[in-house]
């Protein structure tokens, strides 16, 4: 089969996206309530932060605004996984019921087609909240704003997103081997709550685990250091784009391997 180009996939994506948005709009109440729910989640995270720092001026050398920066950073970096890869949550149902087989017969990339089918709009609320928090923290800390900084920010935000996407892909793909992958996915989903803490609070053993075994520290901590503390950027921060791409690639391979192995349910 001839390899299709990037432009081809982009066109298809826009078409599928339009269909998905149309069907979402027919459940307007659900959409509005979900968006409000998302905003609630973010506000509650913010309030928890505020209550915590009312009692303690700093945590382990991290000031309120620096922690807020990390928090905003993690919110933004989690947006792509929320918006573009939300269909991973339904994977186990498709696999279980046998409906997944329909994706296997399309002449385009299976992974692409599956993920493109759902676009989760409520993630955009989170994005707005994250950007607001980040800008607020940025101004309060008094970080310089230059085009180079902005570029760094975007590159490292994308890096951070790739890690979370990879984690979720791998977790969702586990349903090809085990029946109920919900708990695995839920576990990966909970990682995002831990991403907002600086890894320096842990002892070396757990620092190692959260860096190399469960790469939670790459979702916000390492990438954000490049902008937040530009004087002392650890090697791992500079390496994080490569690590992000590598992780994504591996998770993609796992996902595809599981999908290729899939034999349907016979119905």
């Amino acid at each position, binding site marked *: 089969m001839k390899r299709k180009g990037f432009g081809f996939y982009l066109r298809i994506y826009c078409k599928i996206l339009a269909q998905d948005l149309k069907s979402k709009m027919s459940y307007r109440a659900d959409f509005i309530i979900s968006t409000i729910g998302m905003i*609630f989640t973010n506000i509650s995270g913010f309030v928890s932060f505020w209550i915590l720092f009312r*009692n303690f001026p700093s945590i382990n050398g991290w000031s309120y605004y620096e922690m807020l920066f990390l928090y905003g950073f993690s919110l933004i970096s989690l947006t792509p996984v929320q918006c573009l890869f939300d269909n991973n949550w339904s994977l186990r149902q498709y696999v279980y019921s046998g409906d997944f087989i329909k994706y296997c017969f399309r002449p385009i990339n299976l992974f692409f087609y599956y993920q493109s089918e759902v676009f989760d709009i409520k993630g955009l609320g989170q994005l707005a909240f994250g950007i607001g928090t980040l800008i607020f923290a940025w101004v309060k800390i008094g970080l310089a704003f230059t085009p180079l900084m902005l570029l760094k920010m975007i590159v490292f935000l994308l890096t951070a997103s790739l890690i979370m996407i990879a984690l979720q892909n791998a977790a969702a793909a586990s349903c090809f081997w085990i029946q109920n992958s919900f708990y695995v996915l839920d*576990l990966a989903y909970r990682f995002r709550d831990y991403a907002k803490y600086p890894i320096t609070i842990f002892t070396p053993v757990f620092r190692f685990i959260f860096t190399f075994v469960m790469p939670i520290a790459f979702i916000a901590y390492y990438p954000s250091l490049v902008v937040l503390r530009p004087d002392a950027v650890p090697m791992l921060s500079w390496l994080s784009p490569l690590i992000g791409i590598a992780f994504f690639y591996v998770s993609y391979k796992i996902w595809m391997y599981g999908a290729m192995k899939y034999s349907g349910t016979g119905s």
Partner: protein
Amino acid sequence: MKLKKYLTLTRAGIIEALQFRLSFVVMVIGNLLYLIVVYFLWKAIYASAGTDIVNGMTFTDTLIYLVLATALFNFMEMYTVWEIGRNIQSGKIVLDLLKPMEYRKYLFWSYSGSFVTQFFLTFLPTFIAVAAVTHGAIPLGINLLYFVISVVFAVSINYSIDFIVGTICLYTESIWGINIMKQVIVLLLSGATIPLAFFPETMKTVLHWLPFQSIYHAPLSILLNANPQPEKMLVTLGTQAMWCIGMMILSKLFWKASLRQITVNGG
């Protein structure tokens, strides 16, 4: 005889829960991870605070409080809103309504099996582990009895709130948004994420008049109090009992008034 039909549902629930052994393993890993993060986060917080006691709580107190709050959450989370929502969408609710048992009771008792398994598989081990790790910082005396009574009230209040929120689904047909809103509000305002002692005074006063603090704050503060004064204990348990009855009546009435709303497409 009346109890027997309920206990049959409990038994079925236990058998069903034991079917998913792998999910237990993943859940234990997830909880362990959470505990590690909470431990180090609060250790860092207390280390930065400079004093041993913040808002009348030592590090050990806070840790016990938060760990047991998580254990309680796992124990009490019944996914009622999801269950009702899914039953409405699939139409199964019609069959459940035809059963010779009140729907509210049927749902509760068919979940009650998980109470038993969760209690022995997550709550009890966590409790013993915490008691051992903190070298008897949990007072073991008459407060345990009060704690159990308090938890029973808490479960009931939590279920009533869930059921009310589930009933709202009859109108909105939106599950995710409603559920996430409920979860966020309950967890934050009940003191499950941050102990209520750390909240600002005005917020504390407001929360005192809301039902949420009866779910996590009340049982946990009873447990941590070595020398309970009878009057204070009576006030706490009395408040819980009042909310328990009030919310039960409210959820029943709301359900009754909403039943006419059900629309099931086909079947």
